[in-house]
């Protein structure tokens, strides 16, 4: 069983009335709400917290890519991963991921990830999300109905750039290059493991199964709803003759560990409510551009994570509802251990991403939550799925280089 520690890097200083005074946390939240001095403070806190997770023995530490929003301050996940290569030792750097359709040309992704893999001694996980509608269609202007075709072409070019030893030309519909010849190249062979974060589209399931990539369902509706999607995923795997190894499935779960259920509420409720009320306050008009989801996925009934329908489902939910509804797993170490065992086994996931920094949660609580999870929950769950082989996390270089003291005279 693998545990990865995810940071979303939210801006935790939004005004109290944010969700009533402004229509969206994403695409067009007023720029005056961002204080760059706070940004200096926040980025350093966030990086410290990710490094802390590495020290505590999490299998991976995760970052991601989102644009023009207060939900997460990482338009460039590769910058974050680069900042992490130096002070972390063992954790995989799970970049989850680059929205590859947004990189022009896509070889930029191949190059930056090759750099990260070499810099870290072979610890990179290459995540390739299609990207949210807010990010791809509204912030970056990509036509919704051709986004997936663009993404597929970018993927093919990136994989070829990593694996084709000779110089090659690429005459694609969206990218034309005459000389592709990557320097540097990744350490891991044939290339870093590829993980695909998806929101639940049938096309993504089928493709990740065929390519033997890790399918990660990243959801804010919690594990009860997550199980519906993962059940669908595993049914699809079975129908298409795929491998039932749980290590190629990932799931994100919000977790709040404290001394007791009551103390967990005292510690974390305000911050979890900030997350659901403010960080996910996305205007319906930006949540799901026409053509972003295929007719096939629409007919299968999967809604987007954000926007009015999703918000309506979570509107006014407070701590108790969020815990009872499985949105957040909270309580004492024993309670959290028991619930997490259910999540892991019920959803058949071998790559569990935990979110311990939630919403406005400040550093001292992040450390408490993370430390308690790492020392009092995780050890009891590590043995799950020991009968399966994990082929999807990095096998880094044994004697990898470390930063050297640089005392100048």
């Amino acid at each position: 069983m693998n545990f990865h520690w995810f940071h979303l890097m939210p801006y935790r200083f939004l005004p109290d009335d944010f969700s009533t005074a402004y229509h969206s946390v994403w695409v067009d939240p007023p720029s005056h709400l961002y204080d760059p001095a706070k940004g200096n403070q926040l980025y350093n806190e966030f990086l410290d917290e990710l490094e802390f997770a590495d020290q505590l023995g999490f299998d991976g530490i995760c970052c991601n890519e989102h644009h023009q929003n207060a939900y997460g301050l990482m338009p460039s996940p590769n910058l974050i991963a680069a900042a992490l290569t130096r002070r972390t030792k063992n954790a995989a750097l799970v970049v989850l991921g680059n929205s590859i359709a947004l990189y022009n040309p896509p070889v930029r992704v191949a190059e930056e990830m090759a750099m990260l893999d070499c810099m870290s001694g072979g610890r990179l996980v290459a995540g390739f999300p299609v990207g949210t509608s807010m990010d791809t269609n509204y912030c970056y202007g990509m036509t919704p109905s051709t986004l997936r075709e663009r993404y597929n072409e970018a993927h093919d070019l990136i994989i070829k750039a990593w694996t084709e030893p000779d110089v090659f030309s690429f005459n694609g519909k969206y990218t034309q290059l005459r000389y592709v010849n990557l320097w540097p190249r990744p350490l891991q062979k044939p290339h870093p493991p590829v993980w695909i974060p998806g929101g639940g589209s049938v096309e993504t399931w089928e493709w990740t199964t065929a390519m033997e990539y890790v399918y990660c369902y990243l959801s804010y509706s919690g594990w009860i709803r997550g199980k519906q999607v993962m059940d669908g995923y595993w049914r699809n795997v079975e129908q298409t003759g795929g491998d039932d190894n749980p290590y190629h499935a990932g799931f994100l779960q919000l977790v709040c560990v404290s001394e007791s259920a009551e103390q967990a509420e005292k510690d974390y409720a305000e911050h979890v409510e900030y997350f659901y009320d403010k960080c996910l306050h996305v205007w319906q008009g930006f949540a799901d551009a026409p053509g972003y989801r295929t007719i096939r996925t629409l007919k299968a009934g999967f809604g987007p994570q954000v926007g009015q329908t999703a918000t309506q489902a979570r509107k006014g939910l407070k701590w108790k509802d969020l815990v009872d509804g499985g949105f957040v797993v909270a309580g004492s170490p024993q309670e959290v251990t028991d619930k997490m065992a259910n999540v892991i086994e019920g959803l058949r996931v071998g790559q569990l991403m935990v979110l311990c920094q939630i919403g406005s949660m400040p550093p001292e609580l992040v450390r408490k939550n993370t430390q308690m999870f790492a020392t009092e929950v995780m050890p009891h769950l590590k043995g799950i799925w020991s009968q399966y082989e994990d082929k999807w996390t990095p096998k880094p270089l044994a004697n990898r280089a470390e930063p050297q003291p640089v005392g100048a005279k």
Partner: protein
Amino acid sequence: MEMQTVSLRDGIFTTAYQTGGRGKPLVFLHGAGMPAGVNPTVARLAERFTVYAPIHPGWGETPEDIDHIDDIIDFALYYQDFFDALGLEQPIVVGHSLGGMLAAEIAALCSPCISKLVLVAPVGLWRDDAPIPDIFTMGPAELAPIVWHDLESPAAKAMMTPPETPEAQAAAMLGRAQSMAASGKFLWPIPDKGLKKRIHRIKVPTLILWGESDKLAPTVYASEFNSRIPGSRLEMIPNASHMVLVEQPGACAKAIIDFAG
């Protein structure tokens, strides 16, 4: 009017079109939304012309047809294929909204292919000081006030009233998803795909019609099109917004018949 089909490009497309009437050929190119029955202006035009009202590829029974059309130039050439396949000699081309952008591109690429051009509230030009609203962020309730002059009219109310049954609601939702997804290929993120570079090539007599209350295609664009298309005539239609062909079919049909009949 009856529905017929024609095969284009060796069977890649099966194009459905309404046709009827008698007289010179007139092709009507619809806008971004799903065409609902026969447009009332087009029905009147069938009294004086042989009318052809195709359903755009991707808007009809086979949504995947749009995959073969990447941009507005492909779209314009597709319709030249349509004219050829039906043997239409220099048809009059009438286009509304996205269909107007398309009609203008057809005329710019091949003025000799058509005899007269009618642009009804076309999109395709962009001014930063008069942005076209982002229709893709809107549902029917948000769209209605910017496309209808009279929100109390039966047609406006029909647009804003959700259908009764869940099945009908789902079908309407999927229809909107399909037509908006296809429209995005020509309008996303800004509905300026280069017509400004080609509009000077329009050398056929051109009539521009615009509803005076149009809030989707602001009326400043009426004079933009008018000043850029040499010799074009502009007629503003009162008591009408973007859905001018539905709101004032009598006035629109008269203007077109006087111009092209």
